[in-house]
């Protein structure tokens, strides 16, 4: 460095005078040993080719799978089963094991991930030998392989045990429909027990939304009276009791009203 005495400055700056400048000429290729090459432009062009191939795959993924958006957040929905993004699944799965949940929650939530991340950060200070080949340092290699295997296994378990259909259904964007509350059909609906499960606006609460069910009025009337039974399991109890909740005619009016509700 020519710092300090004897240095020539341009004006009162410490930028070097022209005679001390580095010329703007690329290094001679013969200066590089063997097949070593300059970063710019030789190697960067190759990297860009790899980057371009990668970008094509990336864009295809983006076009083929639009990013998901569930319904607007509703903190009052207590039935929602949460799930983190896929790369946090293994941490989430860990919390489901007995030794890492409940009273031992701190083991799964803090100690195990903390130890793993801490060991990763301190790897150079834990593994100080001069050997670089994985086979020559069995302990670090073994621990890392174990960690990778655990991550893969836990992620797998989490994915396999999650009810993806239920997850998709619970997150669906609810179409908002203007409900005509003066409709005689709505009147029957609101005075019967239907409203307690399907909500004031038929948006669904315990039961699903009644907007855009796709059923005919006859089917709806039948379901209201007899409920839904699937594979021996009662999906919806018999609810509408004729002559208690309303007359046969009222039932018909309500069924037609519900069948007429279409999502926009």
């Amino acid at each position, binding site marked *: 460095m020519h710092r300090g005495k004897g240095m020539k400055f*341009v004006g009162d700056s410490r*930028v070097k005078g*022209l005679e001390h400048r*580095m*010329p*703007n000429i*690329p*290094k001679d290729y013969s200066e590089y040993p*063997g*097949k*070593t090459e*300059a*970063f*710019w*432009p*030789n190697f960067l062009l*190759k*990297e860009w080719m*790899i*980057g371009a191939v*990668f970008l094509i795959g*990336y864009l295809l993924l*983006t*076009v083929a*799978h*639009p*990013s*998901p*958006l*569930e*319904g*607007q*957040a509703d*903190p009052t929905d207590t039935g*929602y*089963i*949460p*799930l*983190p*993004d896929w790369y*946090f699944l293994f*941490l*989430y799965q860990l919390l489901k094991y007995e030794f890492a949940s409940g009273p031992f*929650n701190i083991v799964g939530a*803090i100690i195990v991930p903390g130890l793993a991340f801490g060991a*990763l*950060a301190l*790897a*150079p*200070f834990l*593994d*100080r030998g*001069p050997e*670089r*080949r*994985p086979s020559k340092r069995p302990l670090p*290699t073994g621990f*890392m392989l174990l960690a990778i295997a655990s991550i893969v296994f836990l992620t797998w378990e989490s994915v396999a045990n999650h009810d993806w259909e239920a997850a998709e259904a619970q*997150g669906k*964007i609810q179409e908002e429909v203007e409900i005509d509350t003066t409709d005689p059909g709505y009147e029957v609906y609101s005075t019967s027990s239907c409203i307690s499960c399907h909500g004031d606006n038929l948006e669904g609460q315990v039961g699903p939304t009644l907007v855009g069910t796709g059923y005919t009025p006859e089917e709806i009337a039948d379901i209201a009276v007899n409920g839904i039974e699937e594979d021996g399991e009662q999906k919806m109890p018999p609810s509408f009791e004729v002559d208690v909740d309303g007359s046969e005619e009222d039932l018909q009016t309500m069924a037609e009203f519900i069948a007429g509700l279409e999502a926009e």
Partner: protein
Amino acid sequence: MLNKLYDWVDERLDITPIWRDIADHEVPEHVNPAHHFSAFVYCFGGLTFFITVIQILSGMFLTMYYVPDIENAWQSVYYLQNEVAFGEIVRGMHHWGASLVVVMIFLHTLRVFFTGSYKKPRELNWVVGVMLFGVILGLSFTGYLLPWDMKALFATKVGIEIAASVPLVGDMIKTLLAGDSTILGAQTLTRFFAIHVFFLPAALLGLLAAHFIMIRRQGISGPL
């Protein structure tokens, strides 16, 4: 013309050494996929940086529409996704890029680990790299809440509960992140937005600069 402009700037600022150092630094044979196909493992770091740049650019465009407010956040994302020209693509790139960057940084970490490249004299660069990994995960976690849809809200609830289970300081961390000791709501969304868009990217850029300066200083590790 351009040459003259360059000379004019160079005469005043002496910029030649800065960029000639970047341009002329040598790339050895063992990391060059053109010579050894298996050397593609050395591209993971560069690809991580590539996706990071895409994340920053797509994120900048997303903030032109996004509103960090519980009334409008979801609406603005819905609008962006369904009404804005190419909004679906921009959001899609940011969404999938978030996954890809985690994958690539993980692969990059494994490459450095299994080639033993973190050994002396590169310990500090490894530590900075692990910090970068942490920042990326932080960005993933905070970004997940921003669309303010059902999965965002409930996943964040779980995440904050986990943070709250840290001994001694857990409740403080929870309040710091959520903006309230019990409610996860309007405060949380604006906080996560600020963390996702200002705090963590600032940390990311600083750490990246340190990461790259150290690589230039030390050169890439030799062949096994």
